[in-house]
Each structure stands twice: as C-alpha cells, then as structure tokens.
C-alpha cells in the first residue's frame, strides 16, 4: 500500500526552506556529522503552496529594536523578525500569530539563558509561528518551546544545554521541526507530546547527549520522524504512554529512515525514565499502532528496537479501551478520569517493525516484552528485518506481519525479554549528571539556513509538506 502523504494544496511552510536549501544539505559547512544521510535522502518534496498571510514587514534586531522581545511585542501577523549576530540574554515569549523569528546566522545568533532564564523562545497559544536559524543555550527549561498551537515550524535550530528539553512541542498540532539539533538536555533533545492527531514531522534532526534522543508522550497520528540521527543519548527514540499527560495512549507514530546508535551514554543529564530506558535504540514504552521501518540501529547494551510496557505506579486514569484509541485529543480532554486501583501497565501493542537493519544490540536486536500479558495477544509484528538476535527467539517466526498472532506459533518464552530486571538495572545505572556542567562535545558549527538575510518570511503552515515515506531507504552508517 502506497503510503505517501497526499496533502492539501495549502503547504507553504517549507517553501522558503526548500527553495533556499536547494537540496544542498551535503554541502555542510560544519565539522560535525551532517544531519543528512545522502543515500537515503528523501526526495525533494513537491513545491509547496502557501495559504499563509503575506509578509507585512521586517523588524531588525538590534537595528530597529534593541531586544528580540521588543521586536516580538511590536510585530503584527506576517512580520519577519531578523536577528543579527550576537548574544541575547533573553527569554522571549511569543503570543502573536504568524510571525517569523529568524537569526541571520544559526551559529552566531545565540540566545543565552545564563542558567537563569527559563526558555529561549516560548510560543504560547500563537499559531503559525516559525523559528529559524539560531541557537538557544543554557536555559533552565527549554531552548525552543511551542505549547497550545496549531501550525508551528522550527528550522535550523540549535538547542544546547537546556534544563528540560532542547526543542519542546506540547499540545500542538500541524508542524515541522527540520534541520535542527538538540544536545545536553536531561529529558529529550526533541519532544512532541499530547496530540492526536499531531500532523507533525521531525525531519533531519540530530539529537545527542541527552537523556532521550526523542520523547513523545501520548502523541501520534500522522506523527512522523524521519531522516534523523539519535545517538549517544541514554536511550534513542522513546515514544510512550502515560496518564500524567492527557490524550493517552501514544499511538500511530511513524519512525522511518533514521540512524539510531550508541545510546548507552552514561554521562548525560537524565530524567528517571531516561535512566530506566538506557541502552535501548528505539523503545516503544506502552505505545500502540506505531510503524518502525527502515531504520539502522546498532550498538546498544539492551535492545535495538524494543516494544515494552510502561509501568505507571500512580496513574490518574484507567487504561483506555482499544475502541477509544482513535478518540482525538480534543475529545479525550473532555472525559473525566476513572481512578484505577493500583498501578497501570501500558503494553506496547499493534506495532509494526519492518525492514530495519540492526546489529550489535547486546540483549536483542529486536524484542517484545510484557509483564504478565501474553505476547501473542499484543498484536505486534516483525518482518523483513536484518538482525541476528531477538527476544524471544525466532521473533519474526512467532510474530509475522500480515496474519493473526498465535500462541501456537512457537515457544514464546524461549529467550524472552525480562523487562522487570530493567527496574533493578535502573537502581545501579550511572546517575544523572547536572545539565549545567555535563560533559558535552564541542558545540558544533552547523549548517545555517541559506539566504537567511533575503529569503522572505513565511509563517508556519499547519499542513505538512508532501513527503514520500515509501521512497526513504535504510540510511548508511556515518560514524
């Protein structure tokens, strides 16, 4: 079944980015590994069409406004704020729709929180805001943060050493995070959570030296993570369910064409979940109906791709019935919780793991586990993967795609994944380190947005660009 994302005509959000990029990502000016995996590069998207308002004006910082916040406060919908090179000790809040905030150079336009300010740029309830081509570092919470928005875009962003997340998208739909980087956060380098359907795309992101490379709690539904690199975190890509946020469960996230490797890093800042998940590449923790395909995953102490349960000891609601999995986030927020007795075990279910290439994942290249639930009832399937080890053994024979799973397919207990032992591992795992002083590699000089000074400002569209998922192939190793 062809799975390219047919999309409506009103796609503007990457018009400038695609034109100005010219697909020239391989010509990076940085010593750091490119975010691009040339052999697996997604084909150029269709020329997008904008339905966003035309640019009204350009506000220059500091030439016209001494601070970014002053410019933001003065901006009207459609305005482009251009920021010259320099260090800005600001926590910027944006509440105006459809403005674009762009640094003239990604590496020299630096928002620095000095370990005192909370967020580099926080977009609260403002739709269509695009953040482009700058660095946010040393913030106590997040580098770049959108919450409660429809339509968002982050391009050529660097988030470095921030106290919660690098790039944090919460309760927001319709957006793209592209050509961006996150390092040094205890939670995740990039996060998209509490949305269904999210209609969101993470493309060409590099996430390293965080607790988690990617985190997505209760997100999904046209939630696409492609062509990205997750390495040297405690754990790589970890979508999960939990009732500590709304809109559960996590479901229908598509993870294709990524490099996920070396996620055993013992010296990162890390929240407790990151320590628990340490040593795993792509780990669905209680997520359902996800698609994990054509990723290259290697060198993990635990699993390469693991489908495991998420144990919630003090939940706020009961498990949603399978028939409720398609309830939109907006509708589910209207429901009142039903307090359960005791802990909840969110099992990973109905997930497809197909055509990935895995090696040197010491516990198992591919794995599925639960704590008390019969694995053949969970509906997860594995097919066409290149791998050596699995848990349980013969996993692709036990759980092929395209046919109902059966208890009689084989021995589901031989070599099974004992996830309970991970709880004990957590107690002896290397503890978190202070994010303010954690050892990080030298901050990379990364590819800046082409033509930043002259490209017109285009507000973020809530409509995703066309991306041909079927055309994405397993990327080659780059390290």
């Amino acid at each position, binding site marked *: 079944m062809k799975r390219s994302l047919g999309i409506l005509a009103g796609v503007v959000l990457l018009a400038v980015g695609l034109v100005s990029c010219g697909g020239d990502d391989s010509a990076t000016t940085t010593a750091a590994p490119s975010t691009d995996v040339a052999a697996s590069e997604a084909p150029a998207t269709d020329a997008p069409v904008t339905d966003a308002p035309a640019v009204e004006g350009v506000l220059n910082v500091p030439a016209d406004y001494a601070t970014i916040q002053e410019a933001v406060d003065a901006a009207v919908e459609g305005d482009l704020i251009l920021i010259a090179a320099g260090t800005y000790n600001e926590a910027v809040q944006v509440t105006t729709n459809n403005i674009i905030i762009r640094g003239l150079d990604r590496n020299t336009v630096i928002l620095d929180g000095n370990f005192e300010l909370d967020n580099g740029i926080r977009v609260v*309830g403002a739709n269509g805001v695009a953040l482009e081509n700058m660095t946010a570092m040393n913030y106590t919470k997040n580098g770049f943060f959108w*919450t*409660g928005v429809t339509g968002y875009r982050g391009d050529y962003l660097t988030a470095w050493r921030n106290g919660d997340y690098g790039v944090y998208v919460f*309760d927001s739909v319709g957006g793209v995070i592209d050509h961006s980087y996150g390092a040094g956060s205890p939670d995740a380098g990039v996060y998209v959570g509490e949305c269904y359907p999210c209609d969101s795309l993470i493309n060409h992101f590099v996430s390293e030296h965080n607790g988690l490379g990617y985190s997505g709690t209760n997100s999904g539904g046209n939630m696409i993570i492609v062509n990205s690199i997750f390495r040297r975190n405690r754990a790589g890509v970890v979508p999960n369910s939990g009732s*500590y946020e709304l809109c559960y469960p996590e479901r229908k996230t598509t993870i294709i064409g990524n490099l996920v490797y070396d996620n055993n890093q013992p010296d990162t800042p890390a929240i407790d979940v990151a320590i628990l998940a340490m040593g795993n590449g792509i780990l669905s923790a209680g997520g359902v109906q996800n698609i994990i395909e054509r990723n290259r995953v290697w060198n993990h102490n635990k699993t390469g791709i693991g489908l495991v349960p998420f144990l919630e000891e003090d939940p*706020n609601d009961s498990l949603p019935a399978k028939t409720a999995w398609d309830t939109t986030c907006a509708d589910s*927020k209207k429901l009142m*919780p039903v307090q359960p007795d005791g802990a909840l075990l969110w099992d990973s279910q109905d997930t497809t793991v197909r055509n990935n290439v895995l090696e040197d994942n010491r516990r198992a290249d591919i794995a599925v586990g639960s704590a008390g639930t019969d694995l053949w009832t969970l509906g997860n399937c594995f097919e066409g993967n290149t791998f050596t080890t699995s848990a349980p053994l013969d996993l692709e024979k036990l759980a092929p795609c395209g046919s109902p799973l059966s208890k009689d397919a084989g021995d589901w207990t031989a070599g099974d994944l004992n996830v309970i032992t991970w709880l004990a591992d957590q107690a002896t795992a290397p503890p978190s380190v202070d994010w303010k002083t954690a050892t990080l590699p030298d901050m990379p000089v990364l590819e800046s947005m082409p033509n930043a000074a002259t490209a017109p400002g285009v507000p973020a569209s809530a409509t995703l660009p066309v991306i041909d998922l079927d055309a994405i192939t397993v990327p080659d190793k780059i390290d």
Partner: protein
Amino acid sequence: MKISRVSSIVVSAVLLVSCGADAPDAASSGAKPPSEGEAAVTTTIATVPPNGESITIQVLDNSYRPSEYEIKAGTEVVFENRGRNDHNILPDTITDDAGLTTLLASDMSPTAWGIASTAFTPGDSYKHLFNVPGVYKFYCSIHGAPGAGMYGTLTVS
C-alpha cells in the same frame, strides 16, 4: 444546603486595588463619599462560610483537569500535582512565582490565592477555600500564559 449570606455586602475598594490578584468578577460597589447628613459606607469582602464540599483538580503535565469548573462559594478546591513536572498556580494578574509571593505576603483577603512552583512539585497538593463568588482565572507560568497553554477557570457562584 442553604448558604447563608452576609446581608450588607460591599467590596472594599482598597482591598481590591491592593490585592492586584485575579480579583473575581463579582459585582462590587466601591466606597463613596457620604452626602451631607449621610453616614460613610464602609466596604468589606463578602465571604461565604465553608459548605463542607471539596473538589479535586488534577494538575498534570501540562494541564489542569478539569480546566474549567463551577463550584458553589464555600467549596474547598484541592489541586494535586500528579504530573512529573513542577507547576504553579497563578491568578491571571500575576506573572511569576515572585509576584505571587509578594501578593500573598501583602494581601490576606480570601481572593488572594495560588501556589508557587517551589511548593508544588510532583506529589504536592494545594488547597484553597473559595468563599467569594466570582470567576477565578489561573494558569501555570512555566507551561502557559493567561488563557493559553496550561490554564484554567473556576466559576464560584
């Protein structure tokens, strides 16, 4: 349950101005200078005694659940931080924890309320008796702004 009311009710203009809090949208009449031969009118905030009722609002990451609620004056509201993040509960007119601290230190009226993030970490709870009718808008400054992101409304009748 019958709710007794104070028969002569006028809101103190001084208290409302000085509290600077998310003063409820209850109708109020300020003090007015007496006419010749007329006694001065003093104002106080009318409060309703506790009615013994209590409701709980779950504070999750990053939402209040429920985010909107109607209660009778005299009801105690318990906010429980059941998320994994620190949160605060600020009236809409307050911008941060420091502002709340200043408010609560200077205003002892029942309409001055809220909790700073330092005292509202995961597992913490905060309770307040809402005994003055009105509409109380609040938010978490860490994860929202007034009316956006993480915010809520209590309507006290």
